[in-house]
C-alpha cells in the first residue's frame, strides 16, 4: 500500500525537476541564439583580427564584452570557441563510442581469449588517471587540437568498452539471446540487432555525463597549451591568454570560465535527465 503513493510522489518530483531543467536549458539556448544572431549578423567581427590600438577595451555596443589583449572581440571569440570546444568534445566522444561499443560487445558476447585480451588492455589503460594519460599522449604526439582529441579518444574508449562488455555479459546469459541462437541467428546478427539496441540506453546516459568531463579536459589541456593553438578561439586557450591581465581585466577570464561551467552543467543536466528517463521506462514496463 505504502509504495504506491511514494512512487507517485517521486515521479511528480522528477517531473518538476525536469521542468525546471528544461526552462534553464531553454533560457540558455535562447541566450546563445540571441547573442550569436547579434554577433554574427550585426557586428560581424573577425575573430582573429588583431587591433593593438583597441586592446583591452571595456564593454561597449560595438564590443558587448570588450576586447582581449590583442584587440579581438571577446563575444565573437567566446561564441566561436563554444563551437570549437563542443564540436571537438562531441568528436572525441563519438570516436570513443565508435571504438568502445563494438569492442565491448564482441568481448562480452564471445568471451574466452578475446575477452581476456581485452580486459588486460583495459586494465592497463585504467591504471592511469585520464588527465595524465591525455597530457602525456598529447605531449608525445605534439600540441594541437587534433592530437588532443586523439588522446582523449584513447583514454575514453576503455570506459565505454567496459560498460558495454559488462552489460552484454549479463544480457547474453538471458534466454532471449539463447533462443535467438537456437533459432539459427548468426552471432553478428545477435550482436547488432539484439544486443546493441539494448545497451544504447545505458551508453547514452554515460556519454552525456561524460560530455561535461571531456569539455573540461579539452579546455584544461588547451589552457596549459596542449590543445587548441592560437589564434584559434577556444575557451581553455582564451583563459590562458587572459591570465597576464587578470589584475586589470579579470572579466576576460570570467567569461570563458563561466561558459565552460555552464556548458558542463548543462551536459550533466542532460545526462541526469536521460538517466531518469530510462528509469521511468523501467518503472512503467512491468
Amino acid at each position, binding site marked *: 500500500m505504502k509504495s504506491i503513493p511514494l512512487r507517485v510522489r517521486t515521479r511528480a518530483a522528477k517531473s518538476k525537476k525536469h521542468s525546471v531543467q528544461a526552462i534553464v536549458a531553454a533560457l540558455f539556448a535562447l541566450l546563445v541564439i540571441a547573442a550569436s544572431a547579434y554577433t554574427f549578423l550585426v557586428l560581424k567581427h573577425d575573430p582573429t583580427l588583431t587591433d593593438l590600438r583597441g586592446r583591452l577595451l571595456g564593454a561597449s555596443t560595438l564590443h558587448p564584452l570588450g576586447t582581449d589583449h590583442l584587440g579581438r572581440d571577446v563575444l565573437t571569440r567566446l561564441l566561436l570557441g563554444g563551437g570549437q570546444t563542443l564540436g571537438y568534445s562531441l568528436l572525441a566522444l563519438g570516436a570513443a563510442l565508435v571504438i568502445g561499443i563494438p569492442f565491448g560487445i564482441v568481448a562480452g558476447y564471445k*568471451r*574466452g581469449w578475446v575477452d581476456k585480451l581485452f580486459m588486460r588492455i583495459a586494465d592497463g589503460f585504467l591504471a592511469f588517471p585520464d588527465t595524465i594519460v591525455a597530457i602525456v599522449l598529447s605531449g608525445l604526439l605534439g600540441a594541437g587540437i587534433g592530437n588532443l582529441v586523439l588522446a582523449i579518444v584513447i583514454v575514453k574508449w576503455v570506459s565505454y568498452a567496459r560498460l558495454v562488455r559488462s552489460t552484454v555479459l549479463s544480457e547474453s546469459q*538471458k*534466454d*532471449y*539471446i*539463447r*533462443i*535467438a*541462437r*537456437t*533459432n*539459427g*541467428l*548468426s552471432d553478428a*546478427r545477435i550482436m547488432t*540487432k*539484439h544486443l546493441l*539496441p*539494448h545497451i544504447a540506453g545505458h551508453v547514452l546516459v554515460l556519454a552525456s555525463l561524460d560530455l561535461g568531463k571531456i569539455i573540461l579536459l579539452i579546455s584544461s589541456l588547451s589552457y596549459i597549451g596542449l590543445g587548441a593553438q592560437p589564434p584559434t578561439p577556444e575557451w581553455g586557450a582564451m583563459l590562458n591568454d587572459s591570465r597576464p591581465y587578470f589584475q586589470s581585466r579579470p572579466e576576460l577570464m570570467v567569461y570563458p570560465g563561466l561558459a565552460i561551467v555552464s556548458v558542463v552543467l548543462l551536459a550533466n543536466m542532460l545526462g541526469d535527465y536521460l538517466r531518469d528517463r530510462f528509469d521511468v521506462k523501467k518503472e512503467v*514496463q*512491468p
Partner: protein
Amino acid sequence: MILSIEELSIAGQGRTIVDNVSLAVREGEFMALVGQSGSGKSLLSQSIGQLLPPNLHASGRILFEGSNLLERTSKEMRALRGSRISYIFQDYQGAFTPFRSIGGHFDEYQKVHGEKSSAVRKTKAAAALESVGLDAALLRRYPFQLSGGQLQRAAIATSLLLSPRLLIADEATTALDSVSGHRVLELLVAKQKETGCAILFITHDWRHVRRYANRLSVMKEGRIVESGGKHRILDHPQHEYTRNLIDAAPVLSRSLKSGLEEESR
C-alpha cells in the same frame, strides 16, 4: 528414425558428464528423456544443436535425418537450427528480445532462414500465431505487453514456425504450474498431430511423461539406465533407479502408473 544418438559422450575439464549415451527418436513420436537435475539431460539436448558451452566437447555420433550433426560446420548448423530442429525452453517470459515486437521475431526467423518475400513472411507469422490460438494483432505488440500465457503460446508458435522435424522441449513445463504445464503440452501434442514432428521432451516430471509420452528413456548420472515404451517402463521398471524415481512421484488416482485403468475386481 529421425534422430539417433550413438555412443555420445560429453566431457569437459577432465570430467565426463554424459557417458556413452545412445538414444533414438522415431519420426513423429513423443519421446521423453527423464532424469534428475544434473543427470546431463540438458547438455545432451544442447549437443544436438551444437549449442554446448565452449568448454565442453561432445564425441560420438548424432545422426539427424541420416547425417552426423557433430561433423556439421557452425554455418550448416545455423541453417538447421530453428528450421529443421527447434527448441523450447522453460522461461517464456524471457523468450523474446524485450525491445522487439513479437512480429519482429517471427519476421526475423523467417528472413534468416531464407524467406525473401515480406508479404509471405507476414502471412506466415499471422497464421502461426492463429494456429496456437492467438490473435494475429499481437504481432504488433511488444513482449512486455503480453500475458504469461500469451508469451508461452507465442514462443511455441515461433518454434513451430518453420515446421521443424524435431522439436526439443528442454524442461518446457518445469517453471509452470500444473494446469499451465498441461495446457502447454496439450498444445504441443495437438501441433504434433498436425505437423507430424517428433518431440524430444526433457523433464523430471513424471506426471507429464505418464500422460503424453510414447516412449521414454531414464537418465542417471550421465548414463541411460533404461529405455522403452511408456507402459512397459512405468508398470514394469527393470532398473532399481527407475523404480525409485517412479515411487517418489506422487500418484493421485487409483490406476496403474502409466495411466492405464486397473482392471476392476
